[in-house]
């Protein structure tokens, strides 16, 4: 459910990851329909004509998902270094910070959804493609450990091209780190929900994103292991049109439900109710 007024907040700090030209109208990235920015924003950036779900920034997502004013960030002060001295990495970080006003590619914290407490994490594709380096991995593991310590369910929205190349092997290890933290949640009987949004690929999809007790996805999101281009190269096989989309993954048993953006909050609230607040206290 979209609560009215989420757009009325000042855009400072919630700058969109999609390029919306300043002005009255914008264009749907899929069907090219000219849309009034006001209608587009009110519809949470879902095209009013074709239903295409455009990317949201982390704070836009948080705003349409949690109870108003309930979000409290965690671990904002963990900042990236340049451990490999990688070409142009510091400049890329700087640019990402400036463009998104975020300190890294994921925002984590606590919030309430329909008055139920949760730990929530939301990736921001606008920050270096939402890629997972040391900081993203650390924030996810700490969010999970916070859920563990306070017996709170953990909800993660993914939007990431995968592991961050610029931190090399350390990024690869974040797959292991986040997955092992997910294992701790599982052992403790705490609900872990993943919501896959456009795009969720590579090392993020092949780690924590695939480990939710419940996995939801937005329609039409790119979801897959390698990029479509990569998948296309090695065999002459004709790939289905929906290859590496959330629909393809759902068809192959990897996703529980594909839900339109405007239904996601209600669905999460219902899951929290059905799973008794998402924490099994008898364990």
């Amino acid at each position, binding site marked *: 459910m979209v609560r009215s007024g989420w757009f009325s907040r000042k855009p400072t700090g919630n700058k969109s990851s999609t390029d919306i030209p300043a002005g009255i109208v914008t264009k749907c990235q899929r069907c090219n329909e000219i849309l009034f920015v006001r209608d587009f924003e009110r519809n949470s950036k879902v095209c009013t004509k074709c239903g295409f779900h455009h990317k949201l920034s982390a704070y836009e997502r948080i705003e349409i998902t949690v109870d108003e004013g309930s979000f409290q960030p965690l671990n904002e002060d963990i900042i990236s270094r340049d451990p*490999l001295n990688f070409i142009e990495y510091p400049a890329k970080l700087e640019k990402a910070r400036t463009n998104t006003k975020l300190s890294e590619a994921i925002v984590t914290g606590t919030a309430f959804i329909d008055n139920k407490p949760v730990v929530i994490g939301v990736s921001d594709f606008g920050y270096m493609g939402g890629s997972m380096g040391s900081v993203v991995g650390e924030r996810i593991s700490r969010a999970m450990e916070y859920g563990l310590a306070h017996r709170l369910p953990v909800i993660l929205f993914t939007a990431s091209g995968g592991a961050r190349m610029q931190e090399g*092997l*350390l990024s690869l290890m974040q*797959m292991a780190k986040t997955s092992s933290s997910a294992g701790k949640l599982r052992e403790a009987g705490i609900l872990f929900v993943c919501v896959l949004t456009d795009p969720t690929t590579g*090392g993020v999809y*092949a780690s924590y994103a695939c480990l939710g007790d419940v996995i939801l996805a937005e329609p039409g999101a790119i979801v897959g*292991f390698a990029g479509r281009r990569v998948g296309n190269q*090695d065999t002459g096989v004709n790939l289905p049109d929906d290859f590496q989309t959330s629909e393809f993954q759902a068809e192959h048993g990897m996703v529980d439900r594909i839900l339109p953006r405007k239904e996601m909050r209600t669905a999460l609230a219902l899951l929290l109710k059905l799973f008794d607040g998402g924490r099994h206290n008898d364990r």
Partner: protein
Amino acid sequence: MIGDVFDFEKPITEVENLIQELKSPQRREEALHEGIDLSAKIAELEEELHRVMVRVYKNLSPWEKTQLARHKDRPYSLDYIRLIFDDFFELNGDRLAANDEAIVGGPAILENRPVMVIGQQKGRDIKERQRRNFGSAHAEGFRKALRLARLAERFHMPLITLVDTAGAAADLHAEEFGVSEAIAHNLREFSLLKTPIIVTIIGEGGSGGALGLAIGDHVSMLEHSIYSVISPEGCAAILWHDKSRASDAAKSLCLTASNAHSLGVIDDILPEPLGGAHRDPVTMAETIKTSLLTSLNKLDSFPSVDILIETRYQRLRRMGEYVEQTPSEEESNDG
């Protein structure tokens, strides 16, 4: 070695060819006629060969190491399994859909002790390579590995994995059967497995496909093996839209064993015989075996399996480098 000699091997093959020639019956006969003693010359060249090899192999660039890690003659998992273990009994199938031959495994004896060994297996010839998908496993391979890991857990057998893959399969079939889920599942379940796990990266440690077998209590890399989040070619394509700059990318990615060690990702580096593991697989296998026994000894001394698992978790938990600013420092410290 004829056919594909890497650039860095050229000075070595030059001297090798010279020695070969001096040892030929024709040259010997000639020398005999002319009353020249060739054995002194040969000995001299052999010393020279040693010197050249030491120089070349101690100074390999990251890209040269990548080439060596992918060398077609490099020993593969089954070679080491044969040389290190006794009575290996291969088990097949994931009990869900198929048997993926890119991953092999089964129980075996390591110095009188039953263990479970799982390895990624490339192929020697074209036919075997196709059958094993060049060592790139699909979901079925990772699920077979997990099945064997569970079996090891139930029978209190230590798990030993040998990592050697360019990466997991990334084709339509892989996507249909959920290769991402299979890798993710292994990452989580191996981190919780109630038996010691020892990982050795013997050749290529390619991204998520390698990691799917690389969660353990002790992780070693062979001296000339590599471990990377993306292939140098893939990295070069992204950075410069030019796959031919793989050599530059290899350097940037810090994918060598010594890089991995200084980043805190692996525990130790196993020295290779001069010229690489393929020049002396028996010695290499001995080194790996000794290392496995040492690690096993260390892991046996854990007071409980819970402590073992918690230590394994903390090992992963430490990985990564970042700056943690306290709020008061935030103004002054720019990271």
